[in-house]
């Protein structure tokens, strides 16, 4: 806390990701200055030239852990931050970088053939979500994040609100949007197992859910596979589709 101004000091750290979630924060446009006015923004990886400072109150982390260096950074962040917020699917579930997690040992050879640079072994590690390395207080899910959702969660951390979020899956929100079900048309949708919170906006726009909000801890994946099968969709296809954002098994995510 800045003693003089009583304003929480915030840092924003980017790990393995496309940095799209960091950019999407700026999409609150009309409210960006209001939001920045509530914090002492000490470091924003996308925009800062100076290294991350040593003292801060709230840390925002984007991206998956793909190097030991990143894991070390996280441990340092956790030591200093009163609250840690992850943003985006990569940080929450290992997301897109996480797609490399299965059969990880052979991945470098797939890319480099027989000439795998020695440095790969020195720095890289199997992709992991942030919560696999440090305790996370708040999470802003999805790929990319909704900037207003980010502001809502940031304010929770700033003003000390309960991190409680619902873990029911997406179909309830979809029905609130008064949408019929893709499965009725034989189309696969991952909303059956994906955590609610986004407002089921892709299905509302006519696109099936691809699971970027992460598989809910209360998802009934086996039950969802049965639904898929009954609608003429091979459960193996369902599993494959889940890999895009949920490759890293759930027990690791927790």
């Amino acid at each position, binding site marked *: 806390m800045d003693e003089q101004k009583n304003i929480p000091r915030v840092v924003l750290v980017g790990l393995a990701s496309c940095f799209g979630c960091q950019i999407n924060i700026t999409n609150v446009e009309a409210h960006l200055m209001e939001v920045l006015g509530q914090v002492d923004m000490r470091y924003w990886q996308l925009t800062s030239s100076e290294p991350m400072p040593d003292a801060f109150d709230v840390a925002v982390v984007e991206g998956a852990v793909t190097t030991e260096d990143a894991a070390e950074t996280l441990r340092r962040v956790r030591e200093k931050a009163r609250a840690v917020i992850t943003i985006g699917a990569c940080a929450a579930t290992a997301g897109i970088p996480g797609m490399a997690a299965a059969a990880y040992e052979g991945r470098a050879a797939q890319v480099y053939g027989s000439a795998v640079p020695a440095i790969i072994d020195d720095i890289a590690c199997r992709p992991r979500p942030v919560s696999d390395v440090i305790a996370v207080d708040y999470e802003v899910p999805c790929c990319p994040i909704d900037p207003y959702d980010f502001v809502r969660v940031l*304010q929770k951390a700033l003003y000390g609100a309960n991190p409680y979020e619902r873990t*029911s899956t997406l179909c309830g929100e979809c029905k609130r949007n008064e*949408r019929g079900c893709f499965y009725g048309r034989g189309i696969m949708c991952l909303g059956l197992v994906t955590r609610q919170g986004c407002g089921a906006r892709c299905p509302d726009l006519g696109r099936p859910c691809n699971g970027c909000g992460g598989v809910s801890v209360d998802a*009934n994946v086996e039950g969802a596979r049965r639904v898929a099968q009954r609608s003429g969709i091979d459960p193996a296809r369902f599993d494959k589709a889940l890999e895009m954002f949920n490759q890293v098994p759930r027990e690791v995510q927790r």
Partner: protein
Amino acid sequence: MLYRVIDAHELPGLVQAFMRDYEVIAPVRSGKSFAFEAVSSFDDIVLDYPTTLTSLKKYYLPPRETLFEYDMADGVTDYRMEVRPRVLFGAHACDINAINALNLVFEDPRYPDPYYEAHKKATMIVGISCMPGDSCFCHLLDAGEVRSGYDLFLADIGGRYLVSIGSVEGADILEAACDPREATDEDRRAFRDYTRRRQRAFNEEIPSVQEIPMLMDAFHSDDFWEELGSRCLNCTACSSVCPTCYCFDIRDVLDPSGETGRRERVWDACTSPQFALVTGGHNFRPGTRERVRHRMYHKLNGFNAKHGRYLCVGCGRCVKACKADISPIEVLKFFEQKGIEDGDRDAD
């Protein structure tokens, strides 16, 4: 009850008369299903719709509703709701019965709900007769007919409608817009034919079970609930589409400025994993077995104990919305099966 008859060709005029002073909400085609929406033309209305994807409760209990607004500088401002006078045109008996059940909750004289009251005061209801679809079972839960809670109820008796008049306002609009006449013996015969035809059209695979509330108590600990719960996807689609699920959560929503915000009421669901989570971290219904059972109990047992009627009106929406085949029909089938097994045992 007062009855009159109008000809089918008078119906557009009736809707038009409502449109002058009311927002008209009516069933319209929506994708492969039907939805209640505001309409601007009689031609958009599909009066012989089977059922809609979601119910009419959104007009009484919106999915998200501001209760009041607050400002760090000025404190709390009571929210002034803009309520448009509206008519729900073309509601089925089950759905009017559902609203009657909601009234019992939100008009409880001890805890009247001003927000609900404001919506209700501004809302008229014109019911319409229907033929049951495959998943309809209103007749098994005393909700197949409706005796109150509407302004007008139109029964299609072939080229004309037998209109049951439920309010002075309804009668006034009917008189002004149409040329209602006394029902003749022929009209009454046509109505009787319609009710018989409808009664015969219900899906006979859905079992009629006596003493449902008692059976709920008798089989409270049966393995059936474990099996039914194990299918649950934890999605809460059931309560989203249910015309009588009225549970809500209240949350404070801060504006991005951090200076102003709103207290909102949002739909909640007892099938949501966090519904019975309390401060300190204890969850009174931690598993799907407990949550699914609880929902069925409230619908088929608990509400009866308090209000003397089922909270399920047999509209069949959850039958379609639940991808895991969890619905009151499964409970009725289970009771029927238990009855057969017990009968067999007694015969041995």
